[in-house]
């Protein structure tokens, strides 16, 4: 793969970066300051045949247009909302992602976030660390997780894995999807407002597309209501973030646990002071084991491409 010039968009994984450096010629996009990036891309364009991007920095239309020799975009993510798929199809550029290997980590986190939120684990930890416990006891009652109705937006791989875990807690499962899935016992809603109105914990697990942008809007949040909570393990833009902050501020929504935000790494600071909110920094696939598997998938796809073999996880 030594002749493969790879534009690496972000320092996403030390092992991946090391392997790419060993085996290919790597151009590190983040090492040039933002105002010089166009220039950096233009001057290295002839050599660049591949892009490795992630959930933060992908391959948008402008970047693709600037790279006439681009053959493949291998994303270090399962979500492809940061890759201009239309343009890739037009130009015959291959696109791969990292499905399956991160499914369980994301589903594990969804349940962990839901429990942490309902049971106020983060707030309890803060309370103990404040040293206040031996001065006064604060024994507020929280909300049980087991048995709560879980509403899943998108019953794909991640949605199914979330459902399987929630079933272990005796949670009834309902879902909203473009179409009903055969062979599940889960309750299907063809309308997201109805799903939100009839569940306690609404979990976002669908891909981000033009149709699903802001799918969780003010109406959905109001339907979920002051006794309902939102868990977002999808993409920030799935949720109308200012509406979410307003709903929380005004008590129209019971709580939210978020792994993703509209403008990462920036998180609305108003949320920092709220006890009914859990905020984690896009850690859905953030385990040592999974990131290595994701990296191996990226490397495997690039290698297959270079050797003219079938790609491992092609999307385009």
């Amino acid at each position, binding site marked *: 793969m030594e002749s493969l010039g790879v534009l690496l968009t972000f320092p996403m994984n030390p092992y991946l970066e090391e392997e790419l450096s060993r085996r290919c010629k790597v151009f590190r996009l983040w090492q040039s300051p933002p105002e010089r990036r166009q220039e950096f891309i233009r001057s290295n364009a002839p050599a660049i045949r591949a892009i490795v991007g992630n959930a933060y920095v992908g391959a948008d239309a402008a970047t693709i247009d600037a790279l006439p020799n681009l053959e493949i975009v291998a994303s270090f993510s399962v979500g492809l909302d940061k890759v201009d798929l239309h343009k890739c199809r037009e130009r015959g550029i291959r696109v791969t992602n990292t499905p399956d290997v991160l499914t*369980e*980590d994301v589903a*594990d*986190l969804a*349940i*962990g*976030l839901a*429990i*942490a939120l309902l*049971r*106020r*684990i*983060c707030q*309890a*930890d*803060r*309370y*103990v*660390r404040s*040293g206040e*416990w*031996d001065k006064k*006891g*604060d*024994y*507020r*009652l*929280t*909300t*049980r*997780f*087991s*048995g709560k109705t879980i509403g899943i937006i998108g019953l794909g791989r991640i949605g199914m894995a979330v459902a*399987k*875990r929630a*079933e*272990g*807690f005796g949670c009834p499962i309902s879902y909203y999807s473009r179409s009903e899935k055969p062979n599940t016992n889960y309750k299907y809603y063809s309308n997201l407002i109805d799903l939100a109105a009839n569940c306690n914990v609404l979990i976002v697990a669908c891909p981000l597309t033009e149709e699903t942008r802001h799918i969780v809007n003010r109406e959905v949040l109001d339907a979920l209501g002051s006794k309902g909570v939102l868990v977002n393990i999808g993409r920030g833009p799935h949720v109308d973030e200012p509406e979410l902050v307003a709903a929380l501020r005004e008590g129209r929504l019971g709580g939210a646990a978020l792994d993703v935000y509209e403008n*990462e*790494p*920036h*998180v609305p*600071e108003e949320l*920092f002071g709220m006890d009914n909110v*859990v*905020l*984690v*920094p*896009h*850690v859905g696939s*953030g*385990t*040592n*084991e*999974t*990131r290595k598997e994701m990296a191996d998938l990226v490397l495997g796809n690039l290698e297959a491409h270079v050797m003219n073999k079938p790609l491992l996880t092609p999307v385009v």
Partner: protein
Amino acid sequence: MLPVLTSHHLNLMMSDSDRPQLILLRPTREVVMEPLSARFQLLKPWESPLPRDRFFAAHAARARALLVTGLARVDAPLLDALPALRFVITNSVGVDHIDLAECARRGVAVANAGSVYTTDVADYAVGLLVDVLRHVTASNRYVRLGLWPSRGDYPLGFKLRGKRVGIVGLGSIGSEVAKRLEAFSCFISYFSRKRKPSVTYTYFPSVCDLAVASDVLVVTCALTDETYHIIDSDVMSALGKEDGIIINVGRGPLIDEVELVKRLKYGEIAGAGLDVFEYEPIVPKEFFYMDNVVLSHHVAVLTHEAASDLVQLIMANLEAFFSDKPLLSPVSICSL
């Protein structure tokens, strides 16, 4: 037209002698006290200027039932001060604060909270485990300190699939924890006083053996003389390695806390999720400097749902006692 009588009116009309007396040692939640005060004449020593024993002599000489909350001690001196007492009900599952032998000697029946807390404690144990492995609380703190934009992504956590989880005490809580973790593709083993033939999990006859074969220990057993410091230095060495995690939702004294602090400080244990502490509410300050521990103030049982279930169970046990029917959640020395 006759006036409508509400239960409030009935309570006012019922003289104290119609309502059985129920002693409380400490105030407890309104959600518990309110229904009890509707049905029983509550004796509240803390509201009296008299010292407790004088209060009992003056007001509780014929009181037959006692509700213990907050793990207040029920010992021989207390029992001496309540000669008519024949029933003690505690709002906890653990009864290490009750001298069962003394109660048995005096013909005092004891009931506990049965299984009202099982679900919530199991949920909490799983929540702590995911939190420790995936840094939920620590990275939430990181975000709220505004560090994500400046310091970048949070360090990676650890996958749950394939983790070998050792349950210390496979009682009702331990079993519910195991059932939940199976859906996360964890491998479950356990230590218990006796092997459970109906269970498919791998049994280990000692906690050390369990620890050697585990990545995570979840402590869910009762505190007794035998289980004091059941998680000791040897067990921690056996668990050891760099990714050993301990979750405790049982009682603080189940773990040698001084030893645990030391092991965490020197990186010999990878992390811990602790809802209970040896000398709570005193918590070793060393924990406050650790990002790989999650701490809570003995809250695993505290949900609205459990409180409601508890009230129902307390009422049902008291009704049973006062009508000479079998208790719903009796405890005896033999059942430990």
